[in-house]
């Protein structure tokens, strides 16, 4: 089986997917060209749209890095929404104990990291110790986290006024400072940039990155190389969960200042799309995250004006991943490997 033989079928399905998205927009009674133009105009050529996108790119970058690490090792963490909640809950619960200075902010973010690590670690233990599937474990833990958050903001963590299901605001000193006056862009941007640098170093240069690639390419080869796939699976789930938790703490400290339900809607899904389109390359993750954020920002504005229903974003996320998969097949030359997953990173040279 050569790669070129599949070029036409791959191009065909790309055409089909594009047609499907256009048909969906037409069904809403909207004009596809003006929807595309509207998204671009709002996202790229208005200050508000651009800033909104930059703001959203912060958590999506951090979470996309976590997905990149996990998927590289072929560990499919689709429970980032739950890990994000666990991280932000732990940070907010401990917030009253923290000092009101820079150290306090660092602790706050570290607690978010820790909370996410614990939630991801549950799936990690199930995978490593018992061989339980991480896809099922992480998604089940999502539902548990959502319900626990729902209870917390109506129960023990509810604000003193007991009116709205949300927590009291954290100390102003623990909030991430705004970087540019007149915007909401906060120091989480610096956290995201640091995260990109660190994860890129670890994945592209370090021994850990080599191990990720080996485990992702082939379990047996990994065992020969003295790497335990089970241990790596646990480590990877802890690490990617931790990054989701960090993103949650950044959102709380940077934007909302308190816990409430549904404060990061669909981020776990979006992070997967972000990482896949970035080809699991940590250096491309921020670019991809910003691209998806522009899409969110532009489409969100159109949806608020009633041009197209908002779930179009999920259709686009699914279609973009599929187009990306098909394009990889279309562009591939030669071939013949049996397990030939473009995004599983058979690059063991890293």
């Amino acid at each position: 089986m050569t790669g070129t033989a599949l070029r036409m079928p791959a191009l065909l399905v790309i055409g089909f997917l594009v047609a499907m998205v256009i048909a969906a927009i037409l069904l809403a009674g909207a004009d596809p060209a003006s929807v595309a133009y509207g998204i671009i105009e709002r996202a790229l050529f208005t200050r508000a749209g651009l800033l909104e996108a930059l703001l959203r790119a912060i958590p999506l970058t951090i979470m996309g890095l976590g997905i990149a690490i996990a998927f590289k090792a072929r560990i499919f963490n689709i429970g980032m929404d739950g890990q994000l909640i666990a991280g932000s809950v732990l940070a907010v619960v401990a917030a009253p104990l923290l000092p009101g200075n820079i150290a306090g902010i660092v602790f706050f973010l570290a607690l978010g990291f820790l909370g996410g690590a614990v939630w991801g670690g549950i799936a990690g233990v199930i995978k490593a110790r018992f061989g339980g599937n991480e896809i099922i474990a992480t998604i089940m833990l999502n539902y548990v986290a959502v319900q626990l958050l729902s209870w917390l903001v109506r129960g023990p963590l509810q604000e003193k006024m007991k009116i709205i299901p949300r927590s009291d605001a954290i100390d102003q000193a623990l909030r991430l400072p705004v970087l540019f006056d007149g915007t909401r862009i906060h120091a989480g941007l610096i956290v995201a940039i640091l995260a990109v640098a660190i994860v890129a170093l670890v994945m592209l240069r370090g021994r850990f990155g080599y191990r990720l690639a080996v485990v992702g390419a082939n379990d047996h080869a990994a065992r020969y190389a003295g790497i335990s796939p089970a241990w790596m699976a646990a480590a990877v789930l802890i690490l990617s969960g931790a990054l989701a938790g960090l993103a949650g703490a950044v959102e709380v400290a940077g934007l909302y200042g308190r816990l409430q339900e549904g404060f990061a809607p669909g981020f776990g899904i979006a992070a997967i799309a972000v990482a896949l389109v970035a080809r699991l390359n940590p250096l491309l993750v921020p670019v991809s995250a910003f691209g998806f954020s522009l899409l969110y920002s532009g489409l969100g504005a159109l949806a608020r004006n009633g041009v197209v229903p908002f779930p179009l974003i999920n259709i686009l996320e699914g279609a973009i991943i599929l187009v990306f998969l098909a394009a990889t097949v279309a562009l591939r030359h030669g071939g013949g490997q049996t397990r030939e997953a473009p995004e599983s990173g058979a690059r063991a040279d890293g």
Partner: protein
Amino acid sequence: MDEVVFLSGLLAAGIRLAAPIALAAIGETLSQRVGVINVGIEGIMLVGAFIAVLLAVQSGSPWIGLLGAILAGIAMASLHAYFVVTLKTEQIVTGIALLFLGLGLSGYGYRLTLGELGAAVKVPGFRELDILGLADLPVIGPILFGQHALVYLAVASAIAMAWMFRATRLGVIIKAVGETPAAADSAGIHVDRVRFLCVLAAGGFAGAGGAFLSTAHLWGFVENMTAGRGFLAIACVVFARWNPVLAVLVALVFGIADAAQIRLQSIFPAVPYQFFVIAPYVVAIVSLAVGSRSSRMPAALGLPFAKPR
């Protein structure tokens, strides 16, 4: 006697809640037996649930809705099959994309159609059967004779599928394709064609599961109403060691856990309801830890088949 009535009601409700999971699990069993994982069945179920309600409202018949949901499930699955069987892409990533697509298509379609009409739409849903007039029998009546038609169909298809695997030529072909595709190919079996068709059939089952949720269990569509049932179905397949009848029984455990948590909420009003809602998910997490060891999965599961030259 009160306890008996309580348990009988619990079991009857548990069966109702298990049915959508069971239907999806039967399909996923078939798909995985030929070597294809579909983690996107949650998305297929959502599309099935939406299409079932839409067509039931427009035609006035839940059966038309069911048929539409099955066809929609097959259509969604054909996309999965085209990618993983024909283009040989990574199965799990493709399945995740399918999940997003299903989430989007069902939510988008709903907001364009029924969602605009508000909650006032009357959905002509399925009613429970009353087989031989025995549904009112105490204790066993509602369990054995008072279920939805789809419940009996699900049980029948699970048994038929188990028999197919065990005793028919088709079953041998399916198992060969999932275990030793190269040998199956040498024997003149079109491996990719068998896989494609089984993935389509699995999509039909998932679509029917979605239809059960929105036209039998509830009468109406809510965005993301499957709430993880597609993933519970995948868990059923693994715990049941790829046996369709066992998969239905595992689904029943999840269904009973769900039925029990709903009843416990009203028995213990002082306990926050969220602690009961998580019950089926916690059951799944615990059983992942307990039930995953030493499972013998189809040897070629997840691997694309490259015809040797």
